């Protein structure tokens, strides 16, 4: 990097530069905000921030066009017509907060604490997560509709904790910069986690080999030494095949396995069920390539293995991630330089997970009333390894059926219809509720269904503690650059106010923003004001910490054979299971629906459903595009840029996207991005049924037996051209 010695500060001396952190995604890069007359005028990457060293992604750069966007929800509002008709009236904060508190209180008294829930989203930073959890605790309410609890980070967390007792294979832990071999599995960090991608590219420049496993030839796959293109949803079989090679060819770390792993003999027996001929037939990857990848990984030590959403959006999620987790485990890549670091925060710092896992827990009686506690105890019960989440699809079902108890009110802080599969049912469920409050930046299709909207301010107006997702051992202080935009407020303040006006007491003593901020760093002997002056703190990385206390599992070792899974009645060893709707498991259905649909690939300019209304970003990806192989497209008479229907079987309906003819996908596979809506189309629906892939995916069983994941990658579909004048 060319060293930046100066900050661009034109001749205008009235420009103030505020060092803070971006929050347009979970990477939370350091930024410099230029403020003139109280208004942010420019946002640049902070060269002194070790996360991004001056670089910044398009989302962070275009945030300047987000802050004062004319379509922002600018003030508290209440609906003036029927719900969902898109008619609104401005009201004062006092009236809004009082009425919302009164309505929540009425429902709490009438239906009980189980009947109120909230959904977390991108509009809320992680600090809001703990504040809203405090609200649930104050009501003794068990349900948090965390819309990706069953298939994003949490299944990885559960699988990691079962195996290592720690979260080790998601973004922050892998030491990419010093790794000798980076294996990326089911994710394209260039698009989803720019900071991780940057670190991977640094590792690669430092000589790391790169193996990418993805049904799509992605941007990061283009940089790979080996690209493995499996049939969608067969990652479990592939991982077991790789383990077969590593174990049978004696390429594992014998010393580490003997001393620190349990269940190796059982694992050795299990992988014999996956000879490469079988694995090759299941996954479409040649035997030679599997051997090549396994050898490359095992002989370039230490390595890292990164698992992302592609591996968990299926009905064998936990076992798939476990199988992949075991690869670095038996190669001895844990808590060593260039391997998977067990994260640690500065001593005395109060981490988000500690607050969620310890401070804001409720009694087992309450927690076990949570929707999903019985069916998915490791996700939802008091024994959960990913605390304080309900099972999202079941919450939607409960809203509609009232079973096992009524859920009547929701505080929606995200765009639920776009974020959750079974979108049509989700809308129906929201419409059936007695009371819906929304907090979001823009008038999304979900916000349109609310009774009241309490709009939050953006990150430039907030002060809080942050723990960036992609950077190990890092804590930072977000500084306030401007006053809240328009008539918006910090969402934590809104939550604290609602709690107060409901006549409830916050469950801990940090019952204001200031106290919350101080609480996080108090144990370090400093106040938040002092922390703000430092800006950030990095806890030095120490290696092989497990030698002191062992791993945080029941046996104190890495559990290749999981005792927890055995206790809960699951197979303690990973296995392969065919997804429920593939040409192999549903051959008859495949006759009419011959293509395999994978969904949800990200683009860097969007963060989930956000940013579609920012022109600088929208012009980069103006439409949703279905990736389809040119040969397949030619057979179907589809040309590049044609609008096409993607139709799912069993009457699930169809949505349309523009065809992108590309060799990035196998001729039998198509890929559709998620979260598509059109802010420019008139409300209240904003075109949310036109291209929203979640509208043709179901939230019904079968689920992953452990975490309740739904099969979203590797279903059947057919694709055909949209005729002129044809509408959905």
């Amino acid at each position, binding site marked *: 990097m060319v060293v930046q010695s100066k900050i661009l500060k034109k001749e205008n001396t009235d420009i103030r530069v505020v060092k803070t952190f971006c929050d347009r995604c979970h990477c939370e890069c350091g930024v410099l905000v230029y403020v003139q007359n109280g208004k942010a005028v420019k946002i640049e990457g902070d060269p002194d921030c070790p996360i991004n060293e001056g*670089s910044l992604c*398009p989302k962070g750069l275009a945030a300047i066009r987000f802050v004062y966007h004319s379509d922002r929800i600018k003030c508290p509002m209440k609906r003036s017509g029927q719900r969902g008709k898109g008619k609104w009236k401005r009201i004062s904060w006092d009236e809004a907060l009082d009425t919302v508190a009164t309505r929540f209180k009425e429902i709490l008294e009438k239906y009980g604490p189980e009947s109120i829930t909230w959904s977390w989203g991108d509009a809320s930073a992680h600090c809001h997560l703990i504040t809203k959890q405090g609200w649930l605790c104050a009501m003794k309410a068990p349900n948090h509709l965390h819309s990706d609890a069953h298939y994003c980070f949490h299944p990885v967390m559960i699988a990691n904790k079962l195996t290592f007792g720690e979260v080790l294979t998601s973004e922050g832990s892998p030491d990419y910069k010093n790794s000798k071999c980076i294996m990326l599995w089911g994710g394209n960090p260039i698009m989803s986690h720019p900071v991780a991608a940057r670190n991977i590219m640094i590792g690669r420049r430092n000589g790391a080999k790169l193996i990418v496993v993805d049904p799509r030839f992605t941007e990061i796959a283009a940089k790979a030494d080996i690209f493995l293109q499996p049939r969608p949803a067969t990652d479990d079989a592939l991982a077991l095949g790789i383990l077969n090679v590593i174990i049978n060819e004696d390429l594992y770390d014998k010393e580490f396995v003997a001393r620190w792993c349990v269940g190796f003999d059982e694992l050795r027996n299990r992988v014999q069920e996956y000879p490469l001929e079988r694995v090759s037939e299941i996954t479409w990857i040649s035997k030679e390539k599997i051997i090549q990848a396994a050898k490359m990984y095992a002989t370039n030590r230490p390595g890292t293995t990164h698992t992302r959403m592609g591996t968990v959006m299926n009905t064998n999620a936990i076992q798939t991630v476990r199988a992949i987790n075991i690869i670095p485990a038996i190669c001895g890549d844990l808590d060593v330089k260039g391997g998977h670091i067990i994260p640690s925060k500065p001593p005395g710092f109060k981490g988000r997970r500690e607050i969620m896992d310890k401070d804001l827990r409720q009694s087992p009686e309450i927690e076990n009333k949570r929707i999903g506690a019985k069916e998915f105890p490791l996700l939802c019960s008091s024994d959960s390894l990913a605390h304080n989440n309900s099972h999202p699809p079941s919450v939607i079902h409960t809203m509609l059926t009232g079973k096992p108890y009524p859920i009547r009110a929701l505080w929606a802080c995200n765009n639920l219809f776009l974020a959750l599969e079974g979108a049509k049912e989700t809308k129906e469920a929201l419409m059936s509720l007695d009371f819906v409050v929304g907090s979001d930046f823009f008038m999304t299709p979900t916000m349109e269904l609310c009774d009241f909207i309490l709009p939050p301010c953006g990150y430039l107006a907030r002060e809080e503690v942050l723990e960036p997702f992609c950077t190990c051992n890092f804590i930072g202080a977000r500084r306030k650059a401007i006053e809240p935009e328009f008539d918006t407020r910090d969402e934590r303040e809104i939550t604290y106010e609602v709690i107060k006006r409901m006549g409830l007491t916050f469950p801990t003593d940090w019952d204001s923003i200031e106290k919350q901020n101080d609480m996080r760093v108090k144990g370090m002997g400093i106040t938040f004001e002092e922390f703000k002056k430092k800006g950030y703190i990095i806890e030095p990385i120490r290696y092989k910490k497990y030698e002191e206390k062992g791993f945080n599992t029941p046996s104190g070792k890495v559990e290749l054979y999981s005792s927890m899974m055995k206790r809960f009645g699951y197979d303690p060893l990973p296995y392969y299971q065919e997804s429920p709707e593939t040409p192999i498991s549903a051959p008859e259905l495949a006759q009419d629906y011959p293509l395999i649909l994978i969904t949800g690939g990200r683009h860097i300019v969007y963060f989930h459903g956000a940013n579609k209304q920012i022109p600088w970003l929208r012009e*980069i990806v103006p439409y949703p595009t279905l990736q389809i192989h040119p040969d397949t497209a030619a057979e179907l008479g589809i040309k590049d840029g044609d609008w096409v229907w993607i139709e799912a079987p069993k009457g699930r309906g169809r949505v349309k996207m523009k065809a992108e003819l590309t060799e990035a996908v196998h001729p039998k596979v198509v890929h559709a991005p998620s979260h598509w809506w059109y802010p420019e189309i008139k409300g209240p629906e904003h075109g949310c049924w036109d291209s929203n892939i979640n509208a043709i995916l179901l939230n019904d069983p079968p689920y992953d037996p452990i975490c309740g994941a739904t099969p979203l990658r590797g279903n059947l579909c057919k694709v055909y051209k949209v005729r002129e004048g044809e509408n959905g």
Partner: protein
Amino acid sequence: MVRKSLLFDKDECIGCFACEVACKQEHNIPTGEYWIRIFKVGPTSVHGKLIMHFAAIRCMHCGIPSCMKVCPVGAISKRSDGIVLFNEELCIGCKACIEACPFGAPQYNSEKDIVQACNLCFERVDKDLVPSCVHHCPTNALYFGDCNILTSKRIGKRAREGLNLESDCLETRIQFNSDKLPEEISINSTSEDKKTHDVQLFQILKDGSELKRRDK
């Protein structure tokens, strides 16, 4: 004066669009107009292996700018350090420069009825800062600085990996004060695989304006 140079390394470019949006913010550029633009080449199968690259296309600040030669009002000039500048006051919006440029770099701004192009953030450069696109590039695929230092630094790195810098990564190098046209500086190749690919990249450089990114 230190001769400065900008280097684009296609091996490091990950196609993240940071340079595009950084440029938009720095110069407040409307939609539809690009002073720097990322093009994706591929994926395409070469000898059974998928290949994909990105090219960052912008004003190359040519040694002998063909745009400058055709401008009827003298609105285009070249500074002593090599930066090519478009003068908004003088431009009459005739678009002759757009026709003349081999890279599709000059951009017509319909609101102002003028043509604009990358000015290499000369205001920043004059303050010893790097252009905004370079500042925000996450992988250093865009590099700015002393031409000689840059070249030796890069060659050093590549040499360790057994690659030849001159032929492997300099395909869109901008060299100020050079007498050569960029075409002459740029493309070379070492292996058959690369050859096919580099020819494609070269085509983009030549016909940049005609290459369509999806949906455009």
